[in-house]
């Protein structure tokens, strides 16, 4: 009894949360959720029926006879027809439910998502080029507004899956895949790369943050600003170090000379909740730990260890944590 209760409790723990298909937070996810439950229900009923018939067959084994054989032929015929019918119904249902997932909505917000080993580059498009925006590992979306995500990959195949919002879609090098979703309630939804892509595949998460349209616009305007200038001498030293070292060859910080595109844009790195694709919460300590030795924290990732003195490390972390 107790075992049953625990397993039930464990099962129910999967019904809520920020990374589950069972708590849909948008129309597309709701459709998929409906599809899932219909499948479970229909297949469950069929399974029970089959088990019932199996028990009957075992219990009352028939004596072979001419009439029995004709009856068996009828039963087999009816079952085949019923199976075909069930498969057709399920096919039509899943077609109906998934049809709308890659159809572009009217006037959507178009976001480009590019997968890298092992992080996500997020680009907000706009008709005005000066309102284009590049960030990483975190997607902010306005609630109730249709989002069109254009998926591509830089190196190998990755897969986008934020179960609370929409189903899975691959990011494939040399190809563009589209996905449409709408978030109907504010919240933070977690997603994770869903296609094995190498050593650090397990550490390639991203957050979708759905907020009220006004809050979203405020976020977007803040992100469009260049990096805020250093305030203290230490931060100033951090910036000087950053732009004169290999960091600047890989990272962009708008408002400085750093314009590399091989790693995440760091213009507003401290405004993001996590660094290294969901691995660490963004604090000065975690930034410093990451910069001091990225290969021990996330072995094999594409950021090398740059040798520096403790003063330089303090300075660069003081500057980065201020880039709100």
């Amino acid at each position, binding site marked *: 009894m107790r075992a049953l209760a625990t397993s039930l409790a464990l099962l129910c723990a999967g019904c809520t949360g920020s990374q589950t298909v069972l708590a849909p937070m948008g129309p597309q996810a709701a459709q998929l959720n409906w599809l899932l439950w219909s499948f479970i229900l229909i297949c469950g009923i069929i399974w029970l029926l089959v088990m019932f018939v199996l028990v009957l067959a075992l219990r009352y084994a028939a004596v072979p006879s001419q009439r029995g054989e004709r009856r068996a032929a009828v039963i087999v015929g009816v079952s085949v027809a019923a199976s075909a019918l069930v498969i057709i119904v399920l096919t039509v249902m899943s077609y109906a439910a998934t049809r709308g997932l890659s159809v572009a909505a009217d006037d959507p917000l178009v976001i480009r998502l590019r997968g890298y080993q092992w992080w996500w580059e997020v680009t907000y498009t706009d008709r005005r080029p000066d309102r284009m925006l590049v960030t990483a590992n975190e997607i902010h979306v306005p609630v109730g507004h249709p989002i069109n995500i254009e998926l591509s990959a830089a190196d190998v195949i990755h897969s986008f899956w934020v179960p609370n919002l929409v189903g899975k879609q691959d990011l494939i090098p040399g190809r563009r895949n589209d996905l449409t979703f709408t978030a109907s309630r504010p919240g933070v939804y977690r997603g994770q790369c869903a296609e094995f892509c190498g050593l650090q595949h397990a550490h390639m998460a991203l957050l979708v943050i759905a907020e009220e349209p006004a809050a979203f616009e405020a976020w977007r305007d803040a992100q469009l600003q260049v990096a805020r200038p250093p305030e203290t001498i230490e931060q100033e030293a951090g910036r000087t170090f950053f732009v004169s070292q290999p960091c600047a060859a890989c990272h962009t910080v708008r408002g400085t000379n750093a314009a590399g595109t091989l790693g995440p844009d760091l213009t507003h790195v401290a405004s993001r909740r996590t660094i290294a694709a969901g691995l660490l919460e963004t604090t000065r300590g975690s930034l410093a730990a990451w910069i001091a030795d990225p*290969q021990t924290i996330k072995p094999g990732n594409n950021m090398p*260890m740059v*040798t520096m003195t403790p003063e330089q490390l303090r300075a660069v972390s003081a500057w980065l944590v201020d880039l709100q």
Partner: protein
Amino acid sequence: MLLIALALLACKREARELRTDPPATDALNGVVPMANRINGGLPRIFIAQGSPYENNAYQLGQGKRLYDWFNCKGCHANGGGASGPALTDGRWRYGPDPVSIFLTIRDGRPHGMPAFANRLTTEQIWQLTGYVRTMGAYSAQTAAPSRNDEMQSRPAENRAPAATEIRMPPSR
């Protein structure tokens, strides 16, 4: 028994050193060039580590990735040369040895090769050096970088000789 022993032999996998320790990095930077900055002494630690930038496939593969990432392709193409000289033809303006190539990448060369000292770490410069040397190698090697993602425009790095055509020696 023998079969099992043989099978177990295959379990030894090439070790991947994902980063060097800072003192080792400093030591690796300490090449001793000749006065004309061509050729010179390899850092002692290079040999002590077992020359990973010459014979470790992971290090060579990293070099290959950096060759693309840091736009060596922009000037040297896939090794055949463009505005920069060819790297696969087996002829070197500044010498074929690791120290010369390391110095070329780190400090640049007067006729248009930029210095990468502030854009690459010492480890990365060695990875690139190893990779550039496999591009122009004249003898086959067992350690090879990863395959090309694009179409192959020349023989793979582990095949020798790398040059696709035999040219006449320069008549100087």
